[in-house]
């Protein structure tokens, strides 16, 4: 019994000494040998554990970066939302530029600020006033067409009514001048029939002679009668006829060219421009002017310039690389790198001696 215990103790001691010796030996092994043993272990016995550790570390880094990723996503989403708004504003401003180019003179551009008070949704505060030459009853237009009219003027600002205002009225005609009438805001909140929603932001063309029938889609423009709005400003297009009790005249429902929510930048036509002027040609060519303005803007676009500069830089770098390559090849091939011996000069027939 005692012998067995002693033998066991001896084996234990031998194992301990052997393990310690091997561990100590491992600490003093050359680095490449240590790396070889460790690599062998990592590839075989420890491989599942290494995989587990990597997954755990990846999980931890994913958890840590979650908040940063979320905030980055939020900021990108926010920027994306603003981008759509900026794109639409940019488009409107380009259109406004095109309109300004067609008008040539007699106008000022302004920002139309929305008044948030209740009951003031049909007016806009313009950022130009009498100092810029704006007077009451001067027309306010947008690239799409008629917006409204200036009501009151201060030195640096003015208040304009939109066509949705109850006081708005404009003498109008069909674009082919076959029918004349007066345009008013359509104030009915009820739909045209069952199942159709209440109609907001529509106009009525009243007092059209009974003989003048207008088809849906007919463009309606200002007629120039009345002296407030010059002729030729688009108002909208005919949606259909409204049934009224009047038997001697027709009333048409008109879809306006300008939507009030879109009114942000406008042009105020100054008095000199509105007197005896027809703006027919202005809006007829606005579409083409708009596309031209887009081309001009695109040419001046900083992004486009940058892309062009990058491509030029890339081409230069490629050319430099090609040149370097050819020089290197030239060095490698002495027969091409060495310049050919100069030919003996031969006198030209008509040359100087």
């Amino acid at each position: 019994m005692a012998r067995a215990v002693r033998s066991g103790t001896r084996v234990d001691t031998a194992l301990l000494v052997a393990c310690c010796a091997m561990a100590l030996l491992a600490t003093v092994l050359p680095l490449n040998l240590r790396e070889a043993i460790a690599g062998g272990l990592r590839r075989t016995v420890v491989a599942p554990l290494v995989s587990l550790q990597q997954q755990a570390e990846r999980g931890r880094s994913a958890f840590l970066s979650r908040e940063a990723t979320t905030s980055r996503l939020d900021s990108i989403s926010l920027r994306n939302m603003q981008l759509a708004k900026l794109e639409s504003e940019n488009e409107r401003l380009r259109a406004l530029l095109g309109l300004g180019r067609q008008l040539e003179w007699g106008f000022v551009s302004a920002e139309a600020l929305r008044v948030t008070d209740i009951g003031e949704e049909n007016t806009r505060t313009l950022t130009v006033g009498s100092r810029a030459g704006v007077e009451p009853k001067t027309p306010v237009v947008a690239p799409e067409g008629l917006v409204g009219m200036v009501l009151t003027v201060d030195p640096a600002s003015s208040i304009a009514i939109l066509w949705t205002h109850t006081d708005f009225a404009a003498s109008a005609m069909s674009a082919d001048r076959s029918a004349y009438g007066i345009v008013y805001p359509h104030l009915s909140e009820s739909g045209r029939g069952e199942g159709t929603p209440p109609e907001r932001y529509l106009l009525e063309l009243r007092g059209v002679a009974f003989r003048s029938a207008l088809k849906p889609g007919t463009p309606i423009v200002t007629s120039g009668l009345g002296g407030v709005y010059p002729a030729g400003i688009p108002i909208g297009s005919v949606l259909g006829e409204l049934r009224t009790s009047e038997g001697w005249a027709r009333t048409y429902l008109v879809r306006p060219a300008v939507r009030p929510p879109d009114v942000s930048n406008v042009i105020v036509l100054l008095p000199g421009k509105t007197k005896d002027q027809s703006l027919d040609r202005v809006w007829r060519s606005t579409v083409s002017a708009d596309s031209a303005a887009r081309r001009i803007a695109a040419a001046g676009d900083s992004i486009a310039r940058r892309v062009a500069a990058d491509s030029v830089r890339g081409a230069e770098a490629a050319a430099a690389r090609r040149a370097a390559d050819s020089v290197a090849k030239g060095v490698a091939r002495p027969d091409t790198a060495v310049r050919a011996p100069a030919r003996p000069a031969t006198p030209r027939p008509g040359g100087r001696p």
Partner: protein
Amino acid sequence: MNWTRSARAVLAFALLVVLHYTVRPLLGWRTPVDFLVIAVLLSAVRVRPGAAALIGFCTGLVADSLMPSAFGAGALAMTAVGATASWLKAVFFADNVVLHGFFFFVGKWAFDIVYVTAERRMRGVELATQLLLWSPLSAALTAVAGVILLLMLRPVLEPQAA
């Protein structure tokens, strides 16, 4: 020790090794819990000192394979801790939770002392900070985790006799 108990002990050991390579990197603490030391200590008290030294050596070598610069240091430390724990089991491994905790604490601290000394990487203030601040903190956390795991694994490690 019968086969069932051996199998349970091996299972518990494997579980602790897996915990070492999953929970530890997941927590990423400055003072990590050393599940390998817990595994070696729990195994060492169930086997003879020679076997405990061998278990410690193999476990340390596995741990060292992920850090070739300190190759052998972990094996040496684990061998020493395993063998010592096996020799001292009669003294320390009474059925007392506080003593178990103390056992894990001392085991982990001793492991760190041997490891850092054999590694020969740290010197001066860094060595002192490691051995007198971070190692005791890590040992304390290991002790807490060890006690919790021991209580959880008790039915597996020491099954009731039928």
